[in-house]
């Protein structure tokens, strides 16, 4: 019993990134098989556009099914979700996603901080959060919230990031459990809940 409980620690993996993070995902995603025990949520800074190019691009690179995020979309293990442009993505206690068009945070909507904080509140220790490349301070506050809620904090090794500012800023202001290059991140994700 105890073993099983530990094995299913993670409910959600949330990944935040800005400039230079898409390249990381393009490298990371093709190597991931379907991960049936937790949901993956991507929060990327993206252009305010109505098209779904990012969703298409990511779907093309992964065997994990990508669900369209709308208001109150159910968050299910085994699926991937991408924060839509021009909305903040929030987590409800009943395992649904909700959206918010309030002010930009760190010049961003979706903001990584907003989603990380909200996910931390709902999932606590059942959350793993990874912050990737970026040139903005978004994500640091969110990782702090994840850390304080007992979740696992992972930051991309800044030397391997196209834009090291975002991961560096997070490392200086939090105590990440892991600082990893892309291979390390891949390893971590594949071993989650196993």
């Amino acid at each position, binding site marked *: 019993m105890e073993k099983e409980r530990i094995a299913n620690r993670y409910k959600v993996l949330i990944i935040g990134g800005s400039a230079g993070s898409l390249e990381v995902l393009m490298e990371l995603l093709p190597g991931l098989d379907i991960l049936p025990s937790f949901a993956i949520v991507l929060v990327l800074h993206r252009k305010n556009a*109505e098209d779904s190019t990012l969703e298409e691009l990511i779907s093309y690179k992964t065997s994990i099914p990508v669900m369209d*995020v*709308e*208001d*109150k979309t159910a968050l299910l293990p085994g699926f991937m979700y991408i924060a*839509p442009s*021009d*909305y903040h993505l*929030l*987590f*409800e*206690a009943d395992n649904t996603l*909700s*959206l*918010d*068009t*309030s*002010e930009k945070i760190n010049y961003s909507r979706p903001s990584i901080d*907003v989603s990380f*904080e*909200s996910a931390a*509140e*709902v999932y606590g220790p059942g959350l793993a959060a990874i912050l990737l490349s970026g040139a903005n301070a978004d994500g640091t506050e969110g990782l702090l919230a994840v850390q304080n809620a007992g979740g696992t904090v992972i930051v991309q090794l800044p030397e391997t990031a196209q834009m090291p500012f975002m991961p560096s800023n997070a490392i200086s202001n939090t105590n990440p459990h892991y600082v990893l290059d892309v291979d390390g991140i891949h390893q971590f994700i594949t071993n989650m809940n196993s």
Partner: protein
Amino acid sequence: MINDRELELLINEVFEYHGFDFSGYSRASLKRRVDRLYQLDGFKSVGEMLSRVRTEPEYFKRMIEEITVNVTEMFRDPLFYKVLREEIIPVLATKPFIRIWHAGCASGEEVYSMAILLQEANLLHKSLMYATDINPLVLQTAKKGIFPLQMMKQYSENYRISGGKKDFSDYYTANYGFAKFGSDFTAKMVFSEHSLVSDGSFNEFDLILCRNVLIYFDKELQDRAFTLFDDSLAKLGYLALGTKETLKFSSLQKTYTQHNKDKIWKKKE
């Protein structure tokens, strides 16, 4: 940070003392907004916040203004406006009189966008736009039709993407950093306070727009709003929602037909 129990306490007190019912609001967003206000106003305890909300009507007003989300823009999601312009308005044009309701209009940018579309279709003279919100302060801004000049560059670009062919700056006069839209528009608008939580239907409309409002409601309150819209829509009338909102899974799904893949649904006969 306020906790879940404190948030429920606040919701109860607000209802008891002021009659505003936030119990059907999505918690994640509501909590974030309340937390933000708590920090903004430098409260030292939740008790202190509750006491101000209870005893100071002026503070309660501020709370309503700050926890409701009033972010909007002209021709927000320009491609949505392109569909309105090219496919929906030509259908409405055949009516002797066009009634439109903007539910949750905030500071009114989308109402003025609609007025521009109607004018360009030569329909403004026979149209009336009702615009409602629960927040009286934003309605005051909406009534004036005065928006920050610095936004006009983006609005003009949105207008162009929506299929607008004119010089957008012809629609307003610029003065002291503000853009004022013409009184020919405001003459066709009626602004009033209305709550989707507690108020009922007040007229029959050919088009209802409620964009990025329902995302703040839970399923139950969404269904109340949908019923209200259904009661307020004429046969073959249209209901338009935000980019990420849907009529799917609601009680109205069977009696409405979605317009292509757009967030516009038509009421069946």
